[in-house]
């Protein structure tokens, strides 16, 4: 499979807008490369994510999967390649062409491994901050925040500070915060790696519901059973290259690449 080849779309949300109708990829990554201190961590990588798709990026630690995802909202700037988000060119031939990075980041929500909630703000204020800064009136932002807290079943913790919440609760607030700007795509960077099994279950339940609602998601995960359950597509990254990508069942049940097979077998053994 060529590095720039895409993931075929299997699901389109029925919202009837023009982009959905002609199925423009929400995220299109082409020939992306990135180095840190001369060490190549992404090498000519390609990825295509369509509206309503859930793409799981799997692979060993240090293989480049988190860097690939961080390039999508430009937390890391690629050295070469192109990136298009929701039909807007963000990077062309390694150069940032997007005039409004803030707007791009409002289109691409992100949930971090370590939650990264703002400790000086309550849960509801954490969710309200970005919308109010983006110009949403405070009353509307508050209403949106409370609705999202109910959606992640944490309305009773709205006035709690992050340090007063469990890891699972913090991560669910982080998901609500990422949803507050109504992004086109949500990125999850190993969202359950820092959690105990019970909290992991709570977070996965929320993610499962988002998947059922047709949210476009890219998730870097070690949870292969969860990826197998919710993801439409799986991308296996190793040594900075995409070694295999395709429909979830195809990649996880019948991997064609020996490294992919070894990784899946190793994960199953654990």
């Amino acid at each position, binding site marked *: 499979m060529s590095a720039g080849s895409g993931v075929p779309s299997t699901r389109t949300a029925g919202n009837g807008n023009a982009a959905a109708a002609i199925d423009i990829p929400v995220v299109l990554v082409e020939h992306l490369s990135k180095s840190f201190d001369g060490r190549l961590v992404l090498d000519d990588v390609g990825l295509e994510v369509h509206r309503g798709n859930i793409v799981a990026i799997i692979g060993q630690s240090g293989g480049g999967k988190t860097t690939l995802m961080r390039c999508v909202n430009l937390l890391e700037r690629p050295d070469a390649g192109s990136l298009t988000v929701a039909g807007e060119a963000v990077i062309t031939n390694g150069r940032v062409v997007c005039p409004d*990075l803030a707007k791009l980041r409002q289109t691409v929500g992100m949930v971090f491994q370590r939650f*990264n*909630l703002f400790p000086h703000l309550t849960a*509801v204020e954490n969710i309200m901050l970005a919308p109010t*800064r983006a110009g949403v009136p405070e009353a509307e932002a508050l209403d949106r925040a409370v609705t999202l807290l109910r959606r992640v079943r944490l309305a009773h913790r709205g*006035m709690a500070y992050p340090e007063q919440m469990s890891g699972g609760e913090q991560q669910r607030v982080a998901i609500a915060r990422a949803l507050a700007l109504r992004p086109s795509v949500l990125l999850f960077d190993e969202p359950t790696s820092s959690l105990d099994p019970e909290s992991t279950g709570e977070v996965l339940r929320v993610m499962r519901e988002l998947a059922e609602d047709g949210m476009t998601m890219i998730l870097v995960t070690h949870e292969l059973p969860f990826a197998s359950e919710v993801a439409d597509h799986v991308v296996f990254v190793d040594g900075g290259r995409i070694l295999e990508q395709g429909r979830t069942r195809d990649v996880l049940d019948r991997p064609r690449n020996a490294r992919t097979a070894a990784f899946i077998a190793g994960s199953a053994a654990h």
Partner: protein
Amino acid sequence: MSSAGPLDVPWGDYLPDLWDGLLRTVGFTAVSFVGAVILGLAVALLRLGRVRPTRILAAAYTELFKNVPLLAIIFVTYFGLASAGLRLGVFEAGCLSLVLFYAAYLSEIFRSAIKGVHHGQQEAASALGLGRIATFGHVILPQAVRIALPGTNTMLVDLLKSTSLLVTISAAELMSQGRLIASATFRALEVYIVIAVIYFALCYPLSQLLLWLERLIHAGVPLTPRRRRRVKMARALLAAGSPS
């Protein structure tokens, strides 16, 4: 040895002078502290900035004023500059000295506080589309203030006490008034004990007040009317939808 006690000093006659001195001390403290916080924050930001020459300049400033006695700075600004043709008034020279000296220490406190905010906070703010100024104002600064508060509060009380060094340029603050009263009454022991008690009566409640403020901020109590209103609205909205 005379058996005269503190009451032998006609304190009633000197109350207006002591009151003036007290106000002057508070004035020096307030103006100098505000100036030192502004300059200290600017120096801290320059030291954390990307421009190498200004980083070096800010570091040089900090090292210079951290390693020179305050008294030397007072003499340079009041006597030294006057001999070079720039004659500053006592209040201006006093405040300038205190600002220059304490800004160096405060810049170190602010710099370490800003660096102490976890890098993930900056990333989370960027990922939410907040610009550099909004990130600093809404995410980094409020957290840095929490970290910097204990050190900054110590500096404020220290600055108040250091205004007493301005006696050397007859700044009419509390210690200068004490010196005048001691010269007039020849009761140095009683006078300076009373002056020390007044400094204690200023500094102790101030440090307790600052400790209380620290506790409020760490407890997340909303301090601004805007945040109080927002928190009240949020509580009402959350309660409205909760099961009874």
